[in-house]
Each structure stands twice: as C-alpha cells, then as structure tokens.
C-alpha cells in the first residue's frame, strides 16, 4: 500500500482513501442524523417514563 495514500491531517494506518471516505461519511451520518435522533429518542423515553411511573401494579 502506498504510504502517501494514508497521509492526511490524522494518519490512519491501513486504510485506503475510499475507506477513509466511508469513515467520514459514517461520522457525517452520525452527526447530522443519528445523534440528533438518539437525543430525541432519549428525551421522548424520559417523558414516557415519567408518565409510566404512576402505573398502579397490584394483581
């Protein structure tokens, strides 16, 4: 593997430029879509949990 292919702002061993692009795409997907969805889901679950704490369990 051409060493120069792996040079960049941060050296990532053993990865081709295509691999590095896939990693950047992954990070972009995480930052732009997945993390906001996670935070929204966690908040929604907190609201639902607050309501369910009043469920009466007896039988």
């Amino acid at each position, binding site marked *: 593997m051409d060493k120069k292919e792996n040079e960049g702002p*941060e050296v990532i061993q053993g990865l081709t430029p295509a*691999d590095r692009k896939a*990693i950047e795409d992954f990070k972009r997907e*995480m930052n732009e879509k997945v993390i906001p969805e996670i935070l929204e*889901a*966690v908040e*929604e679950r907190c609201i639902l949990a607050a309501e369910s704490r009043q*469920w009466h*369990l007896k039988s």
Partner: protein
Amino acid sequence: MYTWIPLNSSTDLPQLEKHISPEYGPAHVAKTLADPDGISSAVKAVLIESNYNDKDYRSTYYQFYAKKGQGYRADCVRLHFFDGAVTFDEKTLRLSCADSRDNRVTDHYFGYLVLRPTGSTTIGRTVLTPDIRRGACRLIIAAYHKVHLLGLTLKVQGFPSMDQHCDIAVCAHAACWSILRHYSERHNVYREFLTYDITRMAHEFNPGGLVPSKGLLMAHAERVFQEAGMFPVVVTRGRSGPGDLSFYRQLIAYVESGFPLFAAIPRIRHAVAVVGYEWRPAVNTGISGIRHAWDEIKSLAVVDDNYLPYLSIDRPVGSGLLYGAEDIEGFIVALPEKIFYSADAVYKVAPTLFKLGLVVGLPPEDESIIRYFITTGSALRRFVRDRETEFDPNLLTEIMTLPFAQFVWIVEFATEALWALGKIEGRAVIDATASLTEDMPLWLLHSRTKALVFDRQQVGTDTGMKGFELCDMGHTGFSRMEQNLRPTQTK
C-alpha cells in the same frame, strides 16, 4: 424431620397431602406441580424437609404475621426435587447417589420450593432448574444457588421465584424480590434483601398496615432498585403501542445482556420478571430488509408470582388474564453504574454501522440480522480465547489488548443463512461508557476479512484508528456470542 416420596409419575404428587399440614397448602402445591405445565417426569423423588427456618418468610413473620390475631407458625416446609439416581436412607438420613462414582448428589438435584404456613399462596422462596419445567424457554438468565441439606452442600442453577403474600407483598414486590435475589447470588457486589426488606424499600416511610396490599406504583419499584444500590432505567413503550418496535428491540437487548427485567403489564395491572427467551425456528424468509434479534423471538420466559417459574409467553397481545410479550408496556432494567450508552443509542447506531460495511466487509444491510447486547470486556476476551482458532492472530491480539472499559455493547451481524447455523459474519464492539453525542463510539468493528480498531486513548482525534486485513481462518462464520443466558437442557 425428613420424608422421602418416590415418584413414579405426577399422579404420586398428591401424597404430599398425607405428610404436610394443610396450612402449607399441600393440595394446591401438588396440583400445581402435577399440572401439564408443571414439573417434568424427570423428577423421581421429593424430599420433604419439615421445621425449616426460611429467612424470607421469617422476615414477614416478624413484621406482619406475628402481629395478627390468628396464630401463624414460624417455620416452613421445604420440598427438594431429585432424579432417579438419588436414594434416601431414613435411618441414617443419608442422601446417596446410586450410579455416580463420586457420589455427587448435587448433579442429580433439581432445586427446592419452600412452603409458607399462610394457608393460601403458600409457595415461598423457590429455585428450580428450568430443565424440569415443562415448556420452559431455551435460554434463561440463571445463577448458582447454594443449598445446605443434611450435611451436603448442593447447588442448583436457576432464577428465584415466589407467590405473592397478597397482604404484605403483591406481584410487584415479588418481581423485585426475584430480581434482587438473582443479583445477590450472581454478583457478590450486591447484598441480599429479604421479602420484608423489599416491602419497606418501596416507600420512603414504614409501609405498615394495609399499605403494601394496595400494590405498588412503577415509581415504587424503581425506588426498590435504587435503594438496593443499583441504577434502574425505566423504559416505556411509545404511543404506537405494540408497533413501537424500538421498545421491544431494547427489551430483548437487555435480556440478552443477562439483565432480568421488571416488566409492567398495565392492561391487567400486573408485574413480572422477564428472565429469558426462545428463538423462533430459523426459516429462509427471503424477505429483504434489515432484521433485529427481536424479530426472531418466539417467546419470552417470565417469573410470574401466579405460576411456577419460567412461564413461557408468546409474542401477541393476550386476552383476559392471559398476556403476551406485546402486553408489556414498560420495564425497569437495574443496570450497573458504568453503562452510559443506552439501548436507545445502540438501536440507532447499529444499522448505521453498515455505512462502514464496505470498509470491513459486512453483509449487505437488507440481508442482515443484527443482534446487540451488553457484556464485559473480560467476558468478550474469555469468549474469544475459548474460540481462538476462529480469530486471526492480529485480531485476537487487539481484542486482548484494547483498554476496554468494564462494559461493552456487542453488535453481531449475520446473514439469514449464518443465523440459522448460530454463526455471524462480523461483530462491532461499542464502548458502553461512550457519550450519546460521540460520532465514533466504537472500540472495534470486524468481519472475517478486515478489522477497524479504535483505541480511544485520546479524546477528539482519530490517531488510534487503524485498519488491517484478516487472514482466512477457514470457517464460514464466527460463533454467535451466547454467554449471558443458560441453555435449558430439558429433562
């Protein structure tokens, strides 16, 4: 006093009535055990241990039954279950094992059931192996429980259960007790809590009088786990009802992690402990689209205070008092402290990992089944060490040397064909202590051909990231990691 009852079949169980006082409810107990869904015919003898001092019953006796006008006994009866290899000499009170060279009675012991002298709902502390429970699911969360009997120390692997007392403890107390007793037996970091301790822990005040019989709120159950030194997370189904698949996918992820769940069924105001599951038979569906482990679940195993342990419930919503897995609308998972990355996050991140599929060689997303669960770094290393021929030496070295935090999330990727064989194509290891806002919460992602490693030594850089090719280890798939639950060996 000890009485030995050989069993030729379940029709011999009513003999219990001849030897046990009616206040222990022997007729009902015999009927429950002999039920078609009761204990299997592998049980060939019952040893009745009278005058047994049961710590859990005593805790309720001191705080409740001793205060009542009607006289209650302070002692219990304990029933022990054995297979046909064990014999009992009434003269010497010796238990022996006829066909075992090392006379290991414990290998032929199926567990015990304590009977309380309360007239009704008499089944107290019970630990039975799932192996003798008819219809038990294939995978059950279990721990070893020590039993001292006639000078022997026996062991049984199972999950604790008991009937509710009705007046001092209801279904939710019983479910909390089962889960806490499992934790105290399974992990020595947790202390033991008795039945009355659970009743007391549910409230900020002393819950005397009628208070316990009025039941618990979900918040009270959460409080019990907090008081026990755990870190409970309440997860509630969304407004789409049984259509909230992310709820059920999280539920099974925690069960697969070996965490028993306190599950609420508001339709019948009931609470149970979810302690296991069974896969549906692997079928070639040809259906395109990513599938999650929940989609492959046939049934859940629950500990319900109205039944013998390991009741198997199917997925669909039930009717009347019968319920299904999709009747569960909320659960509490009592987590250890150091799990910061929730199942909500893994549910979202796991499918996103296919974005890296071409880098490491994962199967196509719409042909994959994904499964995720928590384990410890040391359990992962043990699993890999036990199967080291499956792993490229460089990958093995990375797994042995990565500085994992105590807990990790594992995501496994399988094609339908590999799933049927109990194999996987690749695996991701996610840091369970990661922040929800991290864009790369991974330790490791690998398939059979390539690996991506992230050593996470320094915040904010990718300097620890590396990729490398893996050599062909001559297998078609890695073993699925199924370490957290015990496979049932039906007897």
